[in-house]
C-alpha cells in the first residue's frame, strides 16, 4: 500500500506540469484513471512495474502538457495577430518555452535508454536514501533544538567520593535541599528520580489498568528550571505540593501519551486519574518533544521530597540552571565547599563532593560520537553512489558521441550542449533523490526500532522539512557535481575531435572511469573492514562471560514505601514474605535478594572504604574502597556466580557474627599472597565492626556486559535501609514467562506496594550493550550496501568496456585468442582494478579505522586478519562481478564482434 500511496503522490506532482485551467477540469479524472492503472500494475506485475508505469506517466504528462501549451500559444498568437496585427509574445514566455523544450528533450533522451536511467537513479536512491535516514537520526537526536530555555546553562549534579570521581551517585534529600541556597553559581535547582507507575482509571480513562513504565517524579519547580512550558494546561506550581509532603496529587503528561491513550481529549486537563491507587489531577500536557532523560517517559509527577524518606537515599538526580556568567569550573569549586559544609552536619558525607556535567552532553554525549561516525560511514556510501553515478553518466556520454557531434555541426553551442546534459543528469539525480526519500520513509522506522533503548529523543526522529531540505541539497549537488563533471569533461573533446584526438580522449575517459571504480572499491573495502570489526567486536562482547548465568533469571526492583515500612525490621518482614511467596510460584527454582544487580544502570550503588583488621591504618593515606552489595543466602547460587573458595552465605550468617564475601578482584588486591578466606576486614568510615571473610566468589561484569569487574564486598543483610532492593528468581523454563506471576505474587503480599520494574537478566544485559548492537547492525548494513555498490560499479564498468571493445576483442579472437584468453583478459582487467582499489582502501583503513577504537571490545581496530579477509572478499567479488560480462564477450560470434 505504501507503493500505491507514494506513486499517487509522485503522479500528482507530475500533473503540476499541465496548464492550471486544464488541470482544474481534468485532474480528478486523470487521478482516478492513474489509480486504476496503478492498482492493476501492482496487482498483476509487482512494484517495480508500478514504478515504471509512474515514470512513463510522468513522461506522458510532460509531453501532453507541452503539446497543450503549444496549441494554446498558437491559438493565442493567432488571436493576438488578429486583434493587434502583430505577434506580441513576451520574452518570459519565450524563455519558459525554451526551458520546457529542454526538459522534454532531456526526458526523451533519458527514456531512450531506460535501463541506464533506472540504474543511475537507483544507485543514487540507495546513497541518498541511506544518507537521509541517517541524517534524520542525527538531526532529530543531536541537531534539533532541545526546546528548552538556554539549555547550555542546564547542568546535572551528582555526588561522588572525592577519591573516585568516576563513580557518581544521586543525592539524598538532605544533601539536595540546601543546594540552591548555598551555592552561588546555581540560579535554581530541581531534582527528579525514576519510578514506575500504573494507571488504573479516572474521569478520562476507563480502560484496563495500564503500566505507564518509567515516570519521572520531580520537585514542583522542575519545568520552571528547564524552561519548558505546557502545551495545554500548565506545568507544576510551587503550591502543588509542599516540601516534605511526599508524592503530590498532580501530574503532567507527555504529548505522546496524551494522544495515544487519551485521544488528545481537551477535557483531560483538570480531570482526575488513578495513578498507583492515588487520585491524581492532570494539570497539563507538555509540548510534543520534552527531552526526557529516559527515552519514552511520558508522565511527570510532583513530589515534595521528605528528608526522612529513606526510599530517596541517594536517589535524587538534581538538575540546575547555572547563574548568569557562572562556569562549570566555578560550580564544581563551590560544590567542594558545599560538601565540606554538609559533612559537618552529616558525618556520612565526609570525603564526598559534588560534580556537575552539562545536561545536553549527558543526554546526547553517549551517542554523539557514534552517530557522527555512522553518519561519516553513510557519507562514504553516498560518495560511492556518486562515483557510480558519475561513471554511468560518463558511459552514457560516450554512447551519445555521435548525437553530440551532429548537434555541434548543426550549430549547437558548447553551452547549449552542456546545459542539455546538465538537465539530464539533474533530472536523474532528482528522480534518484525522490526514490531515496521514498526509501528513507520505508527504512527510517526500522532504523529507529533497531536502535532499541540507546537513542535518546528517538521520537523526534522523523522526515520533516530540515531533512527534506538536506535531501534536496544532496540530490541537486550529486546531479550538478557528479553528473556534470563528465559532461564538462566530455563536451569540449567531443565537439572538436578529429578521429585521432577522439581516440586519446576516449583513453582518458576510460582512465577516469577506472579511477572512479578503484576509489569505489577502496571505500567499500574500508567500510567492509569497519563493519567486520564492529560485528566481530559485538559478537565477542555478547559471548563474553558476565560472571553470572543470565539465561534463566528474572529480577524485580522494589522501592519499599516509606510510610508502610517505616523500620528496617518491617521492611525485612515484607521481603521475607515476598521471597516465600515467590518460591511457591510454579516454574520458580530458587529466589534470593540483593541491593544491586550487576550491570543494572539503576542499581543503588556506592563504594565504602575498608582496611585489613590485621594491619594498622596508614595515617594520611586514602583508604582503599570496594563496592557494597547485600546478597541474601542463595543469591550466588541463584545468579550462578561461582564460589572460588570458602563458602557462600547461609541462614546463620543473618544473626551470627558479622561475615563478608569478597569477589576475586578484591581478594587479589587485598590478600595478594595469602588466602583471603578467614581474613578480617574493618568496613566503613569509622570501621568499628570487624567482618570475617567466609568466601571468595567469581567476578562479574560491573557496569555493562564486557565492562571490567571492580572490587566488591557482599554482606548477608542490610544494617540500614537505603531504598530499593532487587529480588532475583531462577526459573525452570524461560524467565520471560514468569514475569507476570512475579508481579502478581508481589502484589499479593501488599497490593499497595508498587513494583518498580520486572525484567529478565538477559534483557537487562542486552540493554547494556544496545549501542554496540546498533552500531554493529548498522555497520553491517552499510558494509553490505557498499559491497553491492562497488560490485555494480565494477560490473557496469567492465560491461561498458566490453561493449566498447568488441572490435578489439574480435581481432584478438581472429588472430587466435581462445575464449579462455578473452575471459582472462577481461577478468584480469577487473582484478588489476580491484588490486589498485584495495591498495587505496587499505591506506584509507589505516588512516580511518583507528577512530573505531572506542566502539570496540577486545578487538584491535587494525586487526590484520580482518583487513586481510575484507581485502580477499573484495578481490574475489570483483573477479566474480567481471566474470559475467567476460563470459558474454567470450561467447559472442566473431562476425558480430568485427562488424560492430
Amino acid at each position, binding site marked *: 500500500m505504501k507503493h500505491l500511496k507514494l506513486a499517487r503522490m509522485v503522479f500528482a506532482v507530475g500533473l503540476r506540469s499541465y496548464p492550471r485551467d486544464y488541470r482544474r477540469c481534468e485532474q480528478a479524472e486523470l487521478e482516478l484513471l492513474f489509480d486504476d492503472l496503478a492498482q492493476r500494475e501492482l496487482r498483476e506485475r509487482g512494484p517495480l512495474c508500478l514504478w515504471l508505469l509512474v515514470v512513463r506517466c510522468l513522461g506522458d*504528462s510532460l509531453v501532453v502538457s507541452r503539446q497543450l501549451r503549444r496549441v494554446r500559444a498558437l491559438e493565442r498568437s493567432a488571436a493576438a495577430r488578429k486583434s493587434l496585427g502583430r505577434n506580441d509574445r513576451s520574452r518570459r514566455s519565450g524563455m519558459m518555452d525554451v526551458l520546457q523544450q529542454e526538459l522534454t528533450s532531456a526526458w526523451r533522451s533519458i527514456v531512450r535508454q531506460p535501463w541506464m536511467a533506472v540504474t543511475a537513479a537507483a544507485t543514487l536512491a540507495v546513497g541518498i536514501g541511506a544518507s537521509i535516514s541517517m541524517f534524520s537520526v542525527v538531526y532529530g537526536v543531536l541537531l534539533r533544538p532541545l526546546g528548552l530555555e538556554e539549555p547550555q546553562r542546564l547542568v546535572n549534579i551528582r555526588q561522588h567520593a572525592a577519591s573516585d570521581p568516576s563513580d557518581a551517585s544521586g543525592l539524598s534529600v538532605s544533601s539536595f535541599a540546601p543546594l540552591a541556597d548555598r551555592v552561588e553559581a546555581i540560579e535554581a535547582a530541581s531534582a527528579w528520580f525514576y519510578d514506575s507507575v500504573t494507571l488504573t482509571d479516572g474521569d478520562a480513562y476507563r480502560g484496563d489498568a495500564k503500566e505507564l513504565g518509567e515516570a519521572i517524579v520531580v520537585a514542583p519547580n522542575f519545568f520552571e528550571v528547564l524552561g519548558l512550558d505546557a502545551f495545554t494546561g500548565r506545568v507544576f506550581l510551587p503550591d502543588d505540593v509542599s516540601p516534605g509532603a511526599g508524592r503530590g496529587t498532580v501530574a503532567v503528561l507527555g504529548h505522546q501519551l496524551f494522544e495515544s491513550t487519551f485521544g488528545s481529549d481537551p477535557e483531560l486537563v483538570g480531570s482526575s486519574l488513578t495513578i498507583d491507587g492515588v487520585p491524581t489531577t492532570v494539570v497539563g500536557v507538555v509540548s510534543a518533544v520534552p527531552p526526557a532523560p529516559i527515552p519514552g517517559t511520558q508522565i511527570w509527577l510532583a513530589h515534595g521530597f521528605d528528608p526522612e524518606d529513606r526510599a530517596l537515599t541517594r536517589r535524587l538526580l538534581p538538575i540546575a540552571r547555572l547563574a548568569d556568567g557562572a562556569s562549570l569550573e566555578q560550580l564544581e569549586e563551590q560544590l567542594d565547599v558545599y560538601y565540606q559544609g554538609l559533612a559537618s552536619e552529616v558525618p556520612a558525607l565526609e570525603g564526598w563532593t559534588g560534580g556537575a556535567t552539562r545536561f545536553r552532553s549527558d543526554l546526547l554525549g553517549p551517542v554523539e560520537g557514534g552517530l557522527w561516525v555512522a553518519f561519516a560511514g553513510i557519507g562514504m556510501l553516498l560518495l560511492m553512489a556518486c562515483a557510480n553515478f558519475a561513471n554511468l553518466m560518463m558511459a552514457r556520454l560516450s554512447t551519445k558521441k555521435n548525437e553530440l557531434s551532429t548537434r555541434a555541426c548543426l550549430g549547437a553551442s558548447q553551452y547549449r550542449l552542456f546545459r542539455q546534459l546538465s538537465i539530464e543528469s539533474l533530472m536523474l539525480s532528482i528522480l534518484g533523490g525522490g526514490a531515496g526519500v521514498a526509501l528513507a520513509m520505508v527504512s527510517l522506522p526500522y532504523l529507529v526500532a533497531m536502535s532499541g533503548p540507546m537513542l535518546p529523543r528517538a521520537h523526534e526522529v522523523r522526515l520533516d522539512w530540515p531533512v527534506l531540505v538536506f535531501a534536496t541539497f544532496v540530490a541537486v549537488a550529486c546531479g550538478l557535481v557528479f553528473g556534470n563533471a563528465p559532461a564538462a569533461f566530455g563536451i569540449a573533446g567531443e565537439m572538436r575531435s578529429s578521429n585521432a584526438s577522439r581516440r586519446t580522449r576516449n583513453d582518458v575517459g576510460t582512465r577516469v572511469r577506472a579511477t572512479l571504480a578503484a576509489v569505489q572499491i577502496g571505500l567499500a573495502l574500508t567500510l567492509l573492514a569497519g563493519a567486520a570489526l564492529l560485528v566481530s567486536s559485538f559478537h565477542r562482547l555478547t559471548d563474553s562471560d558476565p560472571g553470572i548465568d543470565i539465561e534463566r533469571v528474572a529480577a524485580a526492583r522494589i522501592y519499599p514505601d516509606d510510610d508502610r515500612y517505616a523500620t528496617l525490621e518491617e521492611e525485612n518482614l515484607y521481603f521475607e514474605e515476598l521471597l516465600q511467596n515467590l518460591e511457591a510460584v510454579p516454574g520458580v527454582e530458587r529466589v534470593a535478594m540483593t541491593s544491586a544487580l550487576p550491570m543494572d544502570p539503576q542499581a543503588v550503588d556506592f563504594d565504602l572504604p575498608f582496611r585489613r583488621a590485621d594491619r594498622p591504618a596508614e595515617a594520611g593515606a586514602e583508604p582503599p574502597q570496594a563496592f557494597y552489595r547485600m546478597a541474601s543466602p542463595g543469591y550466588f547460587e541463584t545468579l550462578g556466580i561461582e564460589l572460588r573458595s570458602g563458602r557462600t552465605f547461609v541462614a546463620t550468617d543473618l544473626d551470627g557474627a558479622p561475615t563478608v564475601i569478597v569477589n576475586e578482584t578484591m581478594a587479589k588486591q587485598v590478600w595478594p599472597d595469602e588466602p583471603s578466606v578467614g581474613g578480617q576486614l574493618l568496613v566503613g568510615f569509622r570501621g568499628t565492626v570487624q567482618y570475617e571473610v567466609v568466601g571468595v566468589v567469581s567476578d562479574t561484569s560491573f557496569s555493562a556486559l564486557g565492562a571490567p569487574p571492580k572490587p566488591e564486598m557482599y554482606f548477608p543483610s542490610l544494617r540500614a535501609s537505603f531504598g530499593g532492593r532487587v529480588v532475583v528468581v531462577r526459573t525452570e523454563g524461560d524467565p520471560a514467562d514468569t514475569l507476570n506471576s512475579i508481579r502478581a505474587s508481589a502484589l499479593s503480599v501488599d497490593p499497595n506496594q508498587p513494583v518498580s520494574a520486572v525484567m529478565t537478566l538477559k534483557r537487562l544485559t542486552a540493554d547494556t550493550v544496545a549501542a554496540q548492537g546498533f552500531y554493529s547492525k548498522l555497520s553491517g548494513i552499510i558494509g553490505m550496501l557498499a559491497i553491492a555498490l562497488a560490485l555494480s560499479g565494477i560490473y557496469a564498468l567492465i560491461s561498458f568496456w566490453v561493449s566498447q571493445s568488441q572490435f578489439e576483442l574480435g581481432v584478438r579472437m581472429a588472430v587466435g585468442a581462445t575464449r579462455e584468453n578473452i575471459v582472462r583478459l577481461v577478468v584480469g582487467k577487473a582484478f588489476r582494478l580491484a588490486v589498485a582499489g584495495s591498495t587505496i582502501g587499505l591506506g584509507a583503513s589505516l588512516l580511518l579505522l583507528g577512530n573505531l577504537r572506542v566502539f570496540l571490545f577486545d578487538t584491535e581496530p587494525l586487526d590484520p586478519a580482518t583487513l586481510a579477509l575484507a581485502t580477499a572478499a573484495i578481490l574475489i567479488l570483483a573477479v566474480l562481478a567481471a566474470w559475467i560480462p567476460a563470459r558474454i564477450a567470450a561467447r559472442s560470434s566473431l562476425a558480430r564482434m568485427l562488424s560492430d
Partner: protein
Amino acid sequence: MKPIELSLLVALCGPPAHGYSLVRRVEEESDGRVKLLPGNLYAILQRLTAAGWIQEVDAPAESDQRRRYYQITELGTAELARETAALGRHLALAQERLLAR
C-alpha cells in the same frame, strides 16, 4: 484521422465507457499493442469531443458516479463509417496487389 483516434472511436461504439474501461478496451482490441497513458488519453478525448465526434454522457445507474462517461455521437459514427470505408478500400487494394505479386 490518427490510428489512435480510430481505435478510440471503435472502442466507443459500444456502451458508454469511462477512462479506465477505454484503456482496457483499446488494449484488448489491439491485442495489447496499444497502451494508453492518462495524459494522452484525455488529450485525445478532448480533441474528439471538440470535433463533436464523441460526447460526455451521464454515468449509467449503479456505476461509479465520480467518473466521466463518453459515447460516440452521430457525427462520430458517420465519420467512423467514412474512415472505415476508406480503410476498407485501401485494404482491398492492398490485398489485390499483394496477391498479384
